[in-house]
């Protein structure tokens, strides 16, 4: 079993393609949707963790490509230098997937790696450069 983090980009004319259900039914994959922004009139994006047998994942990626839908595999991950962080919250202003949030108890920054779509917006928004991609 293997898990890859995937961003699927639907062209406007492919919005109706049943990609996710095919990945589940035909390729026996477990899909954990982390972020989805899909509507009929614009390019859609879906970010998900996909878990399954390595051969199934490879075949599924082949299927997505053949269906005329773009995908990207996340190879990098976000590094948070927590020791240098001052917990100001500037990164939470730009995080699109709620991976970075403020605790309403002690107002410390909370990072939920599962929800991170590795977009890198926080690396630029952080005034202390404690966020980086590696």
């Amino acid at each position, binding site marked *: 079993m293997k898990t890859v983090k995937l961003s699927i980009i639907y062209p406007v004319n492919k919005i109706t393609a049943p990609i996710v259900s095919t990945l589940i039914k035909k390729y026996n994959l477990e899909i954990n949707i982390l972020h989805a922004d899909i509507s009929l009139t614009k390019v859609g994006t879906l970010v998900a963790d996909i878990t399954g047998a390595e051969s199934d994942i490879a075949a599924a990626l082949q299927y997505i490509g053949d269906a005329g839908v773009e995908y990207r595999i996340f190879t990098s991950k976000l590094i948070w230098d927590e020791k240098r962080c*001052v*917990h100001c919250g*500037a990164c939470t*202003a*730009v995080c699109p997937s709620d991976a970075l949030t*403020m605790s309403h108890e002690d*107002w410390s920054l909370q990072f939920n790696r599962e929800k991170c779509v590795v977009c890198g917006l926080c690396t*630029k928004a952080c*005034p*202390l450069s404690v966020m980086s991609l590696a």
Partner: protein
Amino acid sequence: MAKTIREINERIRTGTAVILTAEEIIGMVKEKGVAETARNVDVVTTGTFGPMCSSGAFLNFGHSTPGIRMNKVWLNDVPAYAGIAAVDAYLGATEMSETLGMQYGGAHVIEELVAGKDVELRAESYGTDCYPRRKIRTTINRNNINQAYMFNPRNAYQNYSAATNSTEKIMYTYMGTLLPKFGNVTYSTSGELSPLLNDPEYRTVGIGTRIFLGGTQGFVAWEGTQHDPGQVRLENGTPAAQAGTLAVIGDLKKMDSRYIRAAVYEKYGVSLFVGIGIPIPLLDEDMVRRTAVTNRDIMTQVVDKSGRENLNLRVTYEQLHSGSIEINGKKVSTAPLSSLKMAREIAANLKGWMEKGEFLLTEPVAPLPMHTTRLNRLEIRGDFHEDR
């Protein structure tokens, strides 16, 4: 029953003063009422830790042999203002490096000096009879220069407008990254813990007030630039947008780099996080009421940073803290820019100093202005000629 600062100081000296933070006082007043709190509690501590651009430090490097009348100075390639005496300079927090641009600036040099690191000093001069040297290159740190004191012309803003962006494009501002079409709202005040929101009409905070500044004891030196006490105020006396400001001074050599941190705002520039805490003596019931102010009682305006829309929107800090507010019927996420976690730590530290008798209150030497005239605008009174 009114108390004097002298009486409170006596209790601080003998370790009997009762000190609460500006958050703790809220629960106390709710539970015991104003009168009993006024009898039992002596001081409320406040705190803030946010980006404060109008900051910098005066430095005296000491004289070399032969001497130099420095008229251009760089510290780690960041220009410092040398238009003062021979080996004095003022390093502004937002000044940018001539080699690294806005990735590194005066704020970073200040942070490194506070941390005790070596900094490269370069200076040039035209040479004088008494100071013949024309160039110098050396390293300095906080221990081998004479004075290094922070003098911040404008800190501790009393309230600040929250920011948003109505345009179709992302905006990079000093209020952080503002996403298009009201994609987010940022705000930068510690709310009910904020120094001047706990003494909204400057009854106890004035010129000469001893404060927590960057981890050591500093002082209020003057009203801050853009001090605007005539701002619209709510019934409880707190201003509905930015109002009072403080110029503060303190010994950089004694500061702690935990509370002085350099910052870079994407495509905007350099700034400096400054940690400030101010003690508010509870002289009477009126001061208890003032310091018991909650995020529900403090409001700020939401401003479209593109200047395109007048939102005419006022929200409470409770709403801003909740994570979202409504703009034109749309739910918009809110994000802080000043660290409430660090502000709490500062208020707690200041409380600890007083409990140990290490920090005494001061009577203001003079009050902060409380005039009603508003700020001047800068009118364009001529053309700008490139060749002049």
